[in-house]
C-alpha cells in the first residue's frame, strides 16, 4: 500500500510541475493588455504552491498508507479540476472567436448591474450552452484546500472575476446579445442582490401538494422529501426566469427572438430539470414584452407568440407540471423583482428609431448615428438594444444584405463614439449647410459640398459617413479614422504567392484590437486595416483615399489601392505600410487618412451580390481568385502551383 501512496505522490508532484509550466505558457500568450486574464492566472500559480505545501503537510500528518492514498486521490482530483479550468476557460479565452469588443461590453454591463467591478474573461465553450461562474474564482480555486488555503494579498485579495463561456456560433453574432448581455450577466446580479431569496417562492408552494409529487430527477440524490426537492427546483427556476425577465427588460422583443431561438436550437423546449422548459420561458417572455404596435417588432415576436400559445408539452413530470402553473401565476412578479435594476428598454417609444435603422440595414448601411437622416421621431443617440432589435426586424424580410455584420459594425462604432465622448471628445454638428452650394461641378467636392451631400434629402445622392461628426470637414476632403481590425502577414513556408493560383490566405491572419489598445507596424511591414467609418458613395461620386500628411511624415502609407468606385458601401480597406526606420504605434481611432470626392457621370446599375467586397465592415482578405478571368489565366498558364 505504501508503494501505491508513494507512486501517487510522485505523479501528483509531476503533474503539478506540468500544470505550472502550462500555466506560465498561457500567461505569456496573453498580451499585457489582457490584465484580467493574467490576474486570474496568478491565482492558479499560487494554487500550485499552496497545493504542494498542503499535500506535504497532510502526508506527514497521515497515520498510514491508506490515509495517504485517500489524500492523494482527492488532491489529484482537485488538480484535475484546475487543469480543466485552465484548458476550458483560459485557453478558450485565447480563441479568436471571442471579440474583444464583447468583453468590453460585458464589463460595461456589469458596471451598471453590480456593486463591485468585475474582471471579465470570456471563452468559447460547448455549442449548446452558455455558462457563467457564479462562485468567486478564489473560492473555486482554493476551496478544496480548506484551512490550508493561502491568504491572498494585494490586487488578488479584492479582485472579483466574471467567467463566462459562450457557444462559438453565437459569440460573434450581435443578434444573440440578449443571451449574454441580458440573461447571463443577470445571474451575477442575482447572486449579488439576493433576488431569489427576496422572491420567496416558498410562500407560493403548497406543501400539501408538493409532498405528493415525485422528486425531480436532477435532485433525486438528495434522497430527501419531495417538498424540499421541489422547493430547491423552484428556486432554480425562479433564478432562470428572473434572468429571462432581465433580458426582456434590457432588450425587449429581441430577447424573445434570441432566447426562443436558442431554446429551439439546443432542444430545450420541453426539457425540464434545473431550468424551466423553454415552452414556459417563451410564454413568459412574450407576456412580459406585451403587445407591440410596431409591425416590424411584432413580426419578430410573432413566431414565439404562436409557440407560447401552444399547449404545454406532453409527458412532463408531475412536479414540473405543478411548477409551471406556480410560475405562470407569479409571472408579474418577475419583472417586478427587477424594480431597482438598471433602466428598462422601452420598445414602443423606440420603435420608430428601430424601424429606421432596420431600413438602413436592409439597404446595406451600417449606422451609428442619424446624420443626414430625414424623418421625425428618431431617438439619438442610439442604444445597442435599438441596433439589436433593428437587426431582428431586418432579418424578417431577407434583403441579401449581411445584416449581422452590419449590426456588429454599428455596435462597434457606437462603442467608439461613447468612449470618444466620455474622454471629452466633441461630436460636431455637420448640418446647417447654406443653400445654392456648388456641389462639385468644378471637380473635387469642397468641404461645404461634402456636408451638403451628407444631409442630402434624396437618398440616391446621399453620402453616408457613419459615425459622422467626430471631426470637422475642412478644405476639400473628409478625414477617416483607423478601425480596430487588421490582417497581418505571418511567416510561412509558402515559397511564393500568386494572384492566379492563390495561396495568400494561408499566410494571413485576422487580428482585432480593443479601442484602448494599439497596433505596432514595423518598418517595411504591410498590414491590411480598415476605416472606422462606414461609407456609402452615391452613384454620381467617386473618391480617392490618401494618407494624411501628418502621418505620411511619420513614414506611414495608408493606401496603395486608392480609388473608390461609385456605389461603394462599406469600410475602406487600407493597405498600411511603414516606410520609416522605427516601428509605428497606431491606436484605433487615429485620423490617418483622408477622402477626396469628385463627381462622375452616374455609374452603372448598383453592383449585385457578386461584388466581392460588398458591405465590408473590416479589412477583407484578397478575393482576386474570384475574378472572372482567373480561370482563363490558369488555363493559359503551364504552372499549377506557385
Amino acid at each position, binding site marked *: 500500500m505504501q508503494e501505491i501512496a508513494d507512486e501517487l505522490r510522485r505523479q501528483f508532484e509531476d503533474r503539478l510541475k506540468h500544470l505550472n509550466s502550462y500555466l506560465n505558457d498561457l500567461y505569456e500568450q496573453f498580451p499585457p493588455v489582457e490584465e484580467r486574464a493574467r490576474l486570474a492566472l496568478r491565482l492558479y500559480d499560487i494554487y500550485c504552491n499552496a497545493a504542494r505545501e498542503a499535500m506535504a503537510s497532510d502526508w506527514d500528518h497521515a497515520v498510514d498508507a491508506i490515509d495517504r492514498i485517500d489524500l492523494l486521490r482527492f488532491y489529484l482530483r482537485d488538480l484535475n479540476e484546475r487543469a480543466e479550468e485552465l484548458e476550458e476557460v483560459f485557453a478558450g479565452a485565447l480563441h479568436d472567436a471571442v471579440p474583444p469588443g464583447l468583453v468590453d461590453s460585458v464589463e460595461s454591463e456589469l458596471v451598471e448591474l453590480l456593486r463591485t467591478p468585475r474582471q471579465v474573461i470570456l471563452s468559447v465553450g460547448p455549442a449548446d450552452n452558455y455558462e457563467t461562474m457564479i462562485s468567486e474564482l478564489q473560492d473555486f480555486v482554493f476551496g478544496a484546500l*480548506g*484551512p490550508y488555503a493561502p491568504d491572498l494579498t494585494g490586487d488578488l485579495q479584492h479582485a472579483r472575476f466574471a467567467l463566462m463561456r459562450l457557444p462559438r456560433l453565437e459569440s460573434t453574432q450581435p443578434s444573440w446579445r440578449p443571451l449574454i448581455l441580458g440573461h447571463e450577466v443577470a445571474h451575477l446580479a442575482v447572486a449579488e442582490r439576493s433576488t431569489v431569496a427576496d422572491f420567496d417562492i416558498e410562500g407560493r408552494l403548497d406543501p400539501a401538494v408538493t409532498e405528493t409529487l415525485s422528486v425531480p430527477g436532477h435532485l433525486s440524490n438528495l*434522497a430527501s422529501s419531495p417538498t424540499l426537492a421541489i422547493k430547491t427546483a423552484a428556486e432554480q427556476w425562479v433564478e432562470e426566469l428572473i*434572468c429571462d425577465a432581465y433580458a426582456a427588460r434590457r432588450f425587449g422583443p429581441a430577447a424573445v427572438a434570441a432566447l426562443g431561438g436558442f431554446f429551439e436550437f439546443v432542444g430545450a423546449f420541453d426539457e425540464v430539470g*434545473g*431550468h424551466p422548459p423553454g415552452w414556459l420561458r417563451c410564454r413568459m417572455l412574450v407576456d412580459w414584452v406585451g403587445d407591440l404596435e410596431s409591425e416590424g417588432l411584432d413580426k419578430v415576436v410573432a413566431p414565439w407568440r404562436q409557440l407560447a400559445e401552444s399547449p404545454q408539452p406532453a409527458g412532463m413530470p408531475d412536479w414540473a407540471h405543478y411548477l409551471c402553473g406556480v410560475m405562470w401565476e407569479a409571472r408579474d412578479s418577475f419583472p417586478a423583482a427587477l424594480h431597482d435594476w438598471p433602466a428598462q428598454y422601452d420598445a414602443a417609444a423606440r420603435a420608430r428609431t428601430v424601424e429606421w435603422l432596420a431600413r438602413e440595414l436592409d439597404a446595406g448601411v451600417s449606422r451609428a448615428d442619424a446624420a443626414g437622416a430625414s424623418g421625425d421621431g428618431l431617438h439619438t443617440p442610439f442604444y445597442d438594444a435599438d441596433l439589436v432589435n433593428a437587426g431582428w426586424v431586418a432579418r424578417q424580410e431577407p434583403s441579401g444584405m449581411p445584416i449581422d455584420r452590419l449590426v456588429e459594425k454599428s455596435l462597434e462604432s457606437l462603442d467608439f463614439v461613447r468612449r470618444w465622448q466620455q474622454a471629452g471628445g466633441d461630436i460636431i454638428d455637420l448640418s446647417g449647410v447654406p443653400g445654392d452650394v456648388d456641389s462639385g461641378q468644378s471637380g473635387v467636392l469642397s468641404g461645404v459640398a461634402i456636408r451638403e451631400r451628407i444631409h442630402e434629402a434624396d437618398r440616391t445622392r446621399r453620402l453616408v459617413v457613419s459615425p459622422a461628426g467626430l471631426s470637422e470637414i475642412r478644405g476639400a476632403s473628409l478625414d477617416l479614422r483607423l478601425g480596430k481590425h487588421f490582417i497581418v502577414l505571418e511567416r510561412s513556408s509558402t515559397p511564393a504567392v500568386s494572384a492566379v493560383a492563390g495561396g495568400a490566405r494561408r499566410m494571413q491572419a485576422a487580428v482585432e484590437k480593443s479601442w484602448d489598445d494599439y497596433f505596432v507596424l514595423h518598418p517595411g511591414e504591410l498590414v491590411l486595416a480598415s476605416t472606422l467609418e462606414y461609407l456609402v458613395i452615391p452613384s454620381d461620386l467617386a473618391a480617392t483615399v490618401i494618407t494624411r500628411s501628418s502621418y505620411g511624415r511619420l513614414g506611414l502609407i495608408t493606401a496603395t489601392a486608392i480609388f473608390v468606385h461609385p456605389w461603394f458601401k462599406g469600410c475602406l480597406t487600407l493597405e498600411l505600410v511603414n516606410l520609416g526606420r522605427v516601428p509605428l504605434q497606431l491606436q484605433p481611432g487615429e485620423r490617418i487618412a483622408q477622402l477626396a470626392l469628385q463627381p462622375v457621370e452616374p455609374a452603372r446599375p448598383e453592383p449585385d451580390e457578386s461584388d466581392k467586397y460588398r458591405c465590408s465592415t473590416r479589412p477583407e482578405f484578397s478575393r482576386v481568385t474570384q475574378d472572372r478571368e482567373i480561370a482563363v489565366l490558369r488555363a493559359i498558364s503551364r504552372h499549377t502551383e506557385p
Partner: protein
Amino acid sequence: MHRHTASAAMQRTSSSLRSRSIGVALLAVRARAAVKRALAGETLSDRDISELSNVRRVLAGAAEAIGYDLKGSAPAAKHITSVGLALSAVAGPAEPPDKEAMSSHLRSLVADLDRLIGGEPPRDTSALPDFLTGLLRIADRDTSQSGETLVRRA
C-alpha cells in the same frame, strides 16, 4: 462544469459541487487520521483537534439540515451538499432514507467527536471511522468524471 445539453444559460454548478465534495473528502481524511490517533491512545495535537472540529462542523450542519427537513421547512442551499453526502453515506443511495434514524445517527457521531475533542473515548469506536470512510467513498464516486450523481447528466 455543468453541461446540460438541452438547456441554455446554465450556472457553473457541478464543478463547484465537485470542488466542495473534494474539500469535504480531504477534511474527512484528515479527521479520520486524528480519530485513529485518538483511538490508539495517542495525545491529540492542536492540529488533530482542529481537524476533528472541522468535520464536527460539517456533520452538525448535516444534522441540522435534516432536522429542518423533519420539521417541514427546508434548509439553506449550502446544506444541500452536506445533506446529500451524509444521507448517502449513512443510508446508501439505493435505500430509501429513514430520516429520523439518520438524524439520530449524525447526532450520535457529533457527540462522539465532542468526546474525542474533550479527551474522552467515543461510545462506539468503529462508528466514526466507518462513517468517514463511507463519506470518502461517496465523494470518490461523486468526483469521478463518469459518476456525476449530484447533478443530472443530460
